[in-house]
């Protein structure tokens, strides 16, 4: 008998208590869990089988999901990519990021290593965010052939998505051909972080730098991105330290840029 049919029939005979409580579970998991409680080969009678829901679920999983279970099981493919913008509380991010930094701090062997790991984390995010933002803006998104439009995309669209506002300034270095600067006065990553003196010039905006690096790299503009703390002059009262993201493009990128004219 199909397990769903068995549910309709009164439980027959067998030992004292076959009473398996079926708690009401909200959400899409219902269908799946309920099927898990009734393994296909269960004998209605014969108590003492003592199969908990967990075991049954595992047995069910080993057999693969049946067609009934699939209907009620939502997968990642059913979620809508272009959902309206949702805001995340800054404190939620603050807590999460704080844990991230603490976790990395335990593993890292030096300040550079700490920043490096933060950047690495951001890198993966950058790749994903690029795909997401472009998919949401499918009609208008265009490939960027030259690096300035890409940087502009980063300092406006990407920044707005991540931090709710544009970056302060985008500048080209006057000394180095392949260097660009993105200025940010009060990076969200650093808002709840106070760096002790022995950590020197550690800047946790390395995380955001990693995101920028990921976006640039995925778009075809490989670069090194570093979050640098620019200390304010003593005497400029009330001004917090600024963060500058130094974007240094690879040779290959500059060569292609020169070719495109």
């Amino acid at each position, binding site marked *: 008998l199909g397990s769903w049919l068995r549910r309709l029939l009164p439980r027959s005979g067998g030992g004292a208590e076959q009473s398996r409580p079926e708690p009401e579970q909200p959400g899409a998991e219902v269908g799946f869990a309920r099927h898990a409680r009734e393994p296909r080969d269960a004998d209605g009678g014969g108590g003492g089988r003592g199969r908990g829901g967990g075991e049954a679920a595992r047995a069910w999983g080993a057999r693969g999901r049946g067609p009934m279970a699939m209907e009620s099981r939502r997968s990642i*493919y059913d979620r809508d990519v272009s959902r309206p913008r949702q805001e995340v509380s800054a404190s939620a991010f603050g807590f999460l990021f704080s844990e991230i930094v603490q976790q990395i701090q335990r593993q890292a062997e030096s300040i550079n290593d700490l920043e490096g790991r933060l950047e690495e984390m951001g890198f993966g995010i950058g*790749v994903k965010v690029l*795909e*997401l933002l472009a998919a949401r803006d*499918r009609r208008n998104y265009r490939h960027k*052939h030259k690096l300035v439009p890409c940087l502009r995309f980063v300092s406006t669209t990407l920044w707005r998505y991540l931090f709710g506002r544009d970056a302060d300034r985008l500048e080209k270095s006057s000394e180095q051909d392949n260097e660009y600067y993105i200025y940010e006065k009060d990076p969200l990553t650093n808002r709840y972080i106070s760096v002790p003196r022995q950590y020197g010039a550690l800047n946790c905006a390395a995380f955001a730098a990693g995101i920028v690096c990921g976006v640039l790299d995925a*778009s075809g503009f490989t670069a090194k991105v570093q979050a640098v703390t620019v200390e304010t002059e003593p005497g400029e009262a009330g001004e917090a330290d600024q963060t500058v993201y130094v974007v240094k493009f690879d040779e290959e990128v500059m060569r292609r840029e020169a070719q495109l004219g």
Partner: protein
Amino acid sequence: RRRADMFVIVGRSEPLYELELSGGSGASASGNLDQFIIHSALDMVDTALLQHTSLFLRTVDSFGEKFVSAYVTPSHVKFMLLHERNKNEDTIKAFFQEVQELFVKITLNPFYTYDTAITSKGFDDRVRALANRYLA
């Protein structure tokens, strides 16, 4: 008349996903040939990329009666479709766009490493369904 389409997703260095859609009789005898055609069209995709900024690159190459259409995502993952002429370009574009949505969703999955082979059955099922809807 046998109509064999093939859809391939190509990452930075290797194919990430392949789907053979043979209509009509039997397995495609030219299985390897299809892959070869798509592979050699990769250069044409790169050329087309330099000339256009849109994601949909339309037909980039042809081989006999077969045509290769391409669509490149922002992170330079290439969707390529081998097909015969009688396909409406808008239909192909719509197919690519729907696959792009699926691709974004799997990319966002923390358990999927970017630029690796796509083995999710859910993804495969849905791409097949899209192919049946748009390309059959």
